[in-house]
């Protein structure tokens, strides 16, 4: 059995046996030579601040992970920690046990580095509450911390806080979409409550944007809700859309849908579009110039007498729940870059048969909005048709 040594002696011995570099020397090396800089501190320390370009391998994972990150034993390596102790011990392990040939520990660690006025990066991270709230997202490799941050940074505009807008707003808010804009000019009516689950009986008569904001704020305080109580029109559409990354179309009338399409193509904003009637739902994602637009799919709207609304024709309550959640899913894909959004694909859902059908949607070379020969349109004429007045009522 070896004679016991004190921790201080062990550290002193390690420091004597390994190479140390001063922070200024390390900075010069990082600047000029081919060197791998490794931060051996714990996760929370690394997240708080670290040296730009450093890879992170906590000392506790040194033996199990180092080879994976640095397979070349002859590579020049500089390790650092907070004060130069953990990195000295780690350097000893790398040199003596793992056979790395050119390892140095940075004396004084990141503390001395900062005292010397050298730069560090302070990466954005989630708060402890956010890490807990979004832990089930962060655990999924396709989302992770990065995907969650993208969602928190995203600004999504919901057109309509009704049947489709209710479920999509609730799930987008729960998922941590950082900014949710809501456009609706209506107030909550008792006949809405069979499907518009973001509202409730106590809020009958309250503007839908306000009612939705109250529900979202109770669900997730991370979400910044922007109320636009009013109607989308040619005079405000460009300004309203400009502030957002993705638009969710749950409008209940054709003029608004065409207006939104024309403006979103102009601004190159993606639109996740769904519509519902009785037992049937339709869904597609329109990314301007990457895929077709709404007018490529439906060049003209039906005349009002052939365009029944949910108010007139009725709709099964669960249907907008399903279609609105599929919209939220599309938003997730657009925001994080995960998966394959429904670009150039139209998904039909028939509720009574529980049947999904996928149809192909192509860009229309004659499209008056996104086609190669589309004419210039004045802002005030967005969403218009030659016979626009014929179907101005939703």
């Amino acid at each position, binding site marked *: 059995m070896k004679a016991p040594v004190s921790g201080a002696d062990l550290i002193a011995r390690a420091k004597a046996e390994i190479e140390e570099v001063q922070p200024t020397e390390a900075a010069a090396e990082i600047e000029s030579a081919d060197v791998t800089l490794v931060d051996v501190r714990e996760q929370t320390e690394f997240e708080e601040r670290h040296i730009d370009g450093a890879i992170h391998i906590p000392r506790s994972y040194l033996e199990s992970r180092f080879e994976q990150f640095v397979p070349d034993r002859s590579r020049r390596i500089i390790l650092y920690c907070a004060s130069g102790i953990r990195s000295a011990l780690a350097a000893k392990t790398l040199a003596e046990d793992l056979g790395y040939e050119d390892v140095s520990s940075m004396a004084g660690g990141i503390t001395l580095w900062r005292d010397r006025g050298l730069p560090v990066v302070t990466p954005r991270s989630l708060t402890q509450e956010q890490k807990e709230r979004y832990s089930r997202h962060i655990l999924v490799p396709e989302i992770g911390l990065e995907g969650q941050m993208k969602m928190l940074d995203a600004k999504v505009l919901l057109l309509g806080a009704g*049947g*489709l807008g209710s479920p999509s707003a609730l799930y987008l808010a729960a998922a941590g979409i950082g900014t949710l804009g809501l456009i609706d000019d209506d107030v909550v009516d008792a006949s809405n409550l069979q499907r518009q689950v973001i509202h409730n009986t106590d809020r009958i008569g309250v503007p839908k944007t306000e009612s939705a904001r109250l529900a979202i704020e109770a669900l997730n305080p991370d979400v910044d809700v922007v109320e636009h109580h009013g109607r989308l029109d040619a005079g405000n559409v460009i300004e309203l859309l400009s502030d957002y990354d993705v638009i969710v179309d749950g409008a209940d009338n054709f003029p608004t849908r065409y207006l939104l399409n024309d403006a979103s193509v102009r601004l190159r904003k993606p639109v996740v579009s769904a519509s519902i009637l009785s037992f049937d739902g339709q869904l597609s994602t329109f990314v301007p110039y990457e895929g077709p637009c709404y007018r490529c799919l*439906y060049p003209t709207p039906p005349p009002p007498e052939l365009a029944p609304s949910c108010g007139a024709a009725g709709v099964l309550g669960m249907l907008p729940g399903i279609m609105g959640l599929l919209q939220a899913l599309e938003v997730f894909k657009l925001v994080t870059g995960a998966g394959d959004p429904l670009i150039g694909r139209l998904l039909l859902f028939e509720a009574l048969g529980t049947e999904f059908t996928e149809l192909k949607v192509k860009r229309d070379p004659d499209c008056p909005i996104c086609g190669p020969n589309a004419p210039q349109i004045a802002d005030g004429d967005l969403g218009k048709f030659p016979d626009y007045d014929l179907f101005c009522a939703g």
Partner: protein
Amino acid sequence: MAVKVKIPAQLRPATGGEGEIEVEAETVGGALDAVFAKHDGLRERITEDGDLRRFVNVYVSGEDIRFQDGLETAVEDGAEVTILPAVAGG
């Protein structure tokens, strides 16, 4: 060719509630004519002067006939013809 024509919910009042109608036809136009022969009320809902109305799309096995041969598009045995009008409900 035996063809299945799928009718969306909003047009089913014109077919007595039927959502799927089996017909014999060689082209999309022929399939629609065969459906109209059974349910004449559907004709004016989706066609005008013998042509499809502009707000009604028709797909054969997932492809829009507008980018094929229109009503002359040939149908294979067992094909599915989907009639799809624009819907604005939200």
